[in-house]
């Protein structure tokens, strides 16, 4: 309680300092609801009941969403969990994006499909705690035992007939000690959770309200853009800004360094370049035009040493200075794949199994770098002053940015305010704070509020890409076509994709997983289901080929392996629940009418995968449309435990399916001499309306297991299912992504 009061004061001071600092808060974070209108007329006498709930004496009930929103709908689904236990009607609740405050609002990290999972308990507890405090306040006010007090739809009642709104008791409740160890509702008693509720910001989105970081504005704000080196492996030598400075509306052009030489990088401090040129002016168009007038000279960086912090202390990493081209990268990978690799897991005696095999199937799969291409390009607002800093914008993990901002600005954490806007997509890209730090550096130099904007070209050419991967899979079959050995050896630039303990580990007696990697100066990072997005593609199309060689139905073959993994698992640490894995396969088999005559007009591909704590299976129905393969229909089965908001969950899965089809067919970033080959949507192809399926039928396994996320899990197996349907459509196996490339090896 004491701790809480201290925090209250801190957050109050933060807010009032901001309001007094002449910064116009051009956003109203209050989501649309019936109560929202009333809000404008009330004095803010918020009574805080836990960090997540605020109630005025006029009975306006506000729930703070702790995690930033990038389309996964957490701003609706997380507050629903609070409201469930608080015992209020959903349409009477006001939802607001919370401030950045990791002490009061938890980890506040959007990524890893973790929002729902990590907040499931704390948010329901917050709701239950507040409800209990309100009941306690009523019990004390009415001098009756608390057990006699019930609540319904935000009204507190006593058997004598006395009643009060939550608002009427909120002031007193806020002074009480927070109870602990409260009983939470059983799933069968849920009123809000597991009902479909509309996006709380839907109305603002369709009316074009300023929700996104790129929309943020304050009086006196300048616009900044960056000129970065043209290629990975190049750095700034010198530049002449004379002409750019003469352009109308331009305030300054200067070079700046992101990190000082002794900077120790954390995992999310990834930066593509350290020294860049900033152009700052009054408006975006003026800055864009002036930037073209900069005459810059670039030179090779040579090998660079970076100091990375890690669990075992700091390590020095050498980043090679070579200018990489996709062709050489492919050649380097092919070479490295032949060399001995690091053993990640070994069960039984794979060497002997392969030696004794009647048939060995060996296939190699390749996938390119991918750019995130969020629709809203990277951008951030920063106002850095002598003794404090305010930064506002789209960011997945403010708690990871704060320490780095502190280091580069030399400010303590409590002098740094990070506000989270709605994000126009993330897909992992906004977990890396490069653009936040750049904005801060530029504002610091300008001594003014600035908004840094990446053009689409900037966004695509100095990305933090999905790595390039390759993996060779081998299967050993005995004379009876039983799978007796399985071997995967995978690597990438600059990391390996291998998850050694995932299926089919645990289901095959003799198993070997090995990995290797090749360092690179091309910056990489998390991309929707990191590593899994490649593994599922490769492994699930390999299993399809193995099933064919075994003469088995691909679903049946997987189910048999899963049965083995359940009844008599091989090895330890198998990283999946065989029952739940089989569950999504069975559900997708049933719902897709697998093997049914009426579906014969489709070329069908199936795949399933488990990652980020949820299970997914898809059946992709492909046709030949005017000579090109086209995915017309998809059936999806998901197991993410309890589904919080079913319609929104279905939307997520539909989106992941479309994204998966798009990236499987078209996604690719290639390089020439360190320079990205694609810089906009005219050459980097994204899936469009006419290429999306006509139907995506999403089904959820009925479950009372604690809920898990959906942002990532449905995405990876789409690639495999598409590859398998392509085989049925064209008679050819597709090993190299993107699948629309004609560069497909002919096996056998």
């Amino acid at each position, binding site marked *: 309680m004491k701790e809480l009061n201290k925090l209250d004061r801190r957050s109050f001071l933060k807010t009032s300092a901001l309001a007094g600092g002449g910064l116009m808060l051009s956003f109203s974070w209050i989501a649309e609801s019936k109560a929202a209108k009333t809000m404008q007329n009330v004095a803010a006498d918020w009574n805080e009941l836990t960090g997540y709930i605020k109630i005025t004496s006029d009975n306006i009930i506000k729930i703070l969403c702790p995690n930033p929103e990038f389309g996964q709908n957490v701003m609706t689904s997380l507050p629903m969990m609070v409201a469930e236990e608080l015992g209020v009607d959903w349409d009477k609740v006001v939802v607001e994006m919370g401030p950045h405050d990791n002490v009061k609002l938890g980890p506040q990290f959007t990524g890893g499909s973790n929002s729902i999972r990590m907040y499931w308990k704390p948010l329901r507890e917050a709701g239950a705690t507040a409800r209990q405090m309100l009941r306690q306040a009523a019990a004390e006010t009415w001098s009756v035992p608390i057990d006699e007090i019930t609540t319904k739809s935000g009204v507190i009642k006593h058997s004598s007939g006395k009643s009060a709104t939550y608002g009427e008791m909120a002031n007193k409740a806020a002074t009480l000690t927070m109870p602990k160890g409260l009983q939470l509702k059983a799933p069968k008693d849920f009123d809000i959770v597991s009902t479909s509720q509309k996006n709380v910001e839907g109305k603002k989105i369709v009316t074009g309200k300023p929700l996104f970081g790129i929309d943020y504005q304050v009086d006196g704000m300048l616009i900044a853009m960056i000129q970065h080196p043209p290629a990975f492996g190049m750095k700034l030598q010198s530049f002449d800004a004379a002409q750019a400075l003469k352009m109308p509306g331009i305030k300054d052009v200067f070079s700046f360094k992101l990190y000082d030489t002794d900077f120790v990088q954390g995992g999310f401090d990834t930066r593509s370049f350290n020294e860049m040129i900033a152009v700052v002016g009054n408006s975006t168009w003026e800055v864009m035009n002036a930037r073209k007038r900069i005459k810059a000279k670039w030179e090779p960086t040579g090998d660079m040493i970076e100091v990375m912090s890690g669990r075992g202390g700091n390590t020095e990493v050498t980043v090679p200075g070579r200018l990489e081209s996709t062709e050489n990268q492919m050649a380097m990978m092919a070479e490295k794949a032949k060399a001995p690799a690091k053993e990640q897991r070994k069960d039984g005696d794979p060497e002997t199994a392969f030696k004794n095999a009647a048939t060995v199937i060996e296939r190699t799969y390749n996938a390119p770098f991918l750019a995130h291409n969020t629709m809203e390009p990277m951008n951030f607002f920063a106002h850095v002053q002598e003794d404090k800093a305010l930064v506002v914008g789209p960011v997945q993990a403010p708690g990871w940015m704060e320490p780095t901002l502190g280091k580069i600005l030399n400010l303590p954490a409590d002098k740094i305010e990070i506000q989270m806007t709605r994000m*126009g997509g993330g897909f992992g890209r906004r977990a890396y704070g490069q653009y936040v730090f750049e904005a801060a550096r530029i504002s610091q130099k300008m001594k003014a509020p600035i908004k840094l904007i990446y053009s689409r070209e900037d966004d695509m050419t100095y990305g933090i890409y999905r790595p390039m991967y390759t993996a060779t899979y081998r299967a050993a079959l005995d004379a009876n076509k039983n799978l007796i050995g399985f071997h995967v050896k995978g690597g990438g630039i600059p990391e390996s994709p291998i998850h050694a303990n995932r299926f089919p580990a645990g289901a095959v007696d003799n198993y070997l997983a090995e990995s290797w990697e090749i360092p690179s100066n091309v910056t990489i990072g998390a991309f929707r289901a990191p590593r899994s997005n490649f593994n599922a593609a490769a492994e699930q199309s390999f299993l399809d080929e193995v099933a064919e060689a075994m003469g088995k139905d691909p679903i049946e073959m997987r189910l048999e392996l899963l049965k083995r993994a359940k009844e008599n698992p091989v090895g330890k640490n198998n990283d999946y629940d065989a029952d739940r894995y089989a569950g999504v396969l069975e559900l997708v088999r049933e719902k897709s009418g697998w093997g049914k005559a009426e579906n014969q007009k489709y070329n069908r591909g199936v795949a399933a995968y488990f990652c980020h704590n949820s299970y997914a299976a898809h059946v992709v129905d492909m046709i030949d449309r005017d000579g090109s393969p086209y995915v017309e229909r998809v059936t999806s089965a998901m197991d993410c435990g309890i589904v919080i908001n079913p319609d929104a969950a279905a*939307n997520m899965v539909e989106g992941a399916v479309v994204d998966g089809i798009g990236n499987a067919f078209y996604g690719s970033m290639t390089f020439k001499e360190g320079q990205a080959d694609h810089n906009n949507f005219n050459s980097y192809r994204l899936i469009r309306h006419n290429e999306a399926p006509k139907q995506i039928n999403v089904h959820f396994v009925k479950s009372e297991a604690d809920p898990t996320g959906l942002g990532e899990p449905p995405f990876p197996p789409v690639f495999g299912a598409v590859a398998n349907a392509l085989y049925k459509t064209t008679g050819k196996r597709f090993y190299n992504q993107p699948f629309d490339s004609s560069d497909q090896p002919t096996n056998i």
Partner: protein
Amino acid sequence: MSKYNIKINGTTKVVDVDPTTPMLWVLRDHLNMPGTKYGCGIAMCGACTVHLNGMAMRSCQLPVSAVGSQEITTIEGLSEDAAHPVQKAWLEHDVAQCGYCQSGQIMSAVALLKNNPNPNDEDIEAAMSGNICRCGTYLRIKEAIKTAAKN
């Protein structure tokens, strides 16, 4: 710099900008109307779609000097409170994920329905394929357009 009187959403606005400035940036930077979004700047994504005399137009390709007396409508001009049938349909189908592309999608859809009040799948695909949705909400967009057509 030159002065322009531009008709936007039924009112005339005065801006003093470089003649080459695309309407996208005039709206966003000079008129504080950020509903129209920047996605690519080269007519490839549709995020910046507005109406010019009722026709869908990529505002990133429309220099302020070319507007003249033509009438511009932006997402802010459809309705204040999501009362337009297309906006309503979007809410009914809860289309948005991140939401960033949706004002462009809605403006393209409104223009489509003006010309073709009863579009079939192919009409919708033809009219909407210039609008990218990175989150992949295409199916719901299609459904919402059909719902709006009915109303």
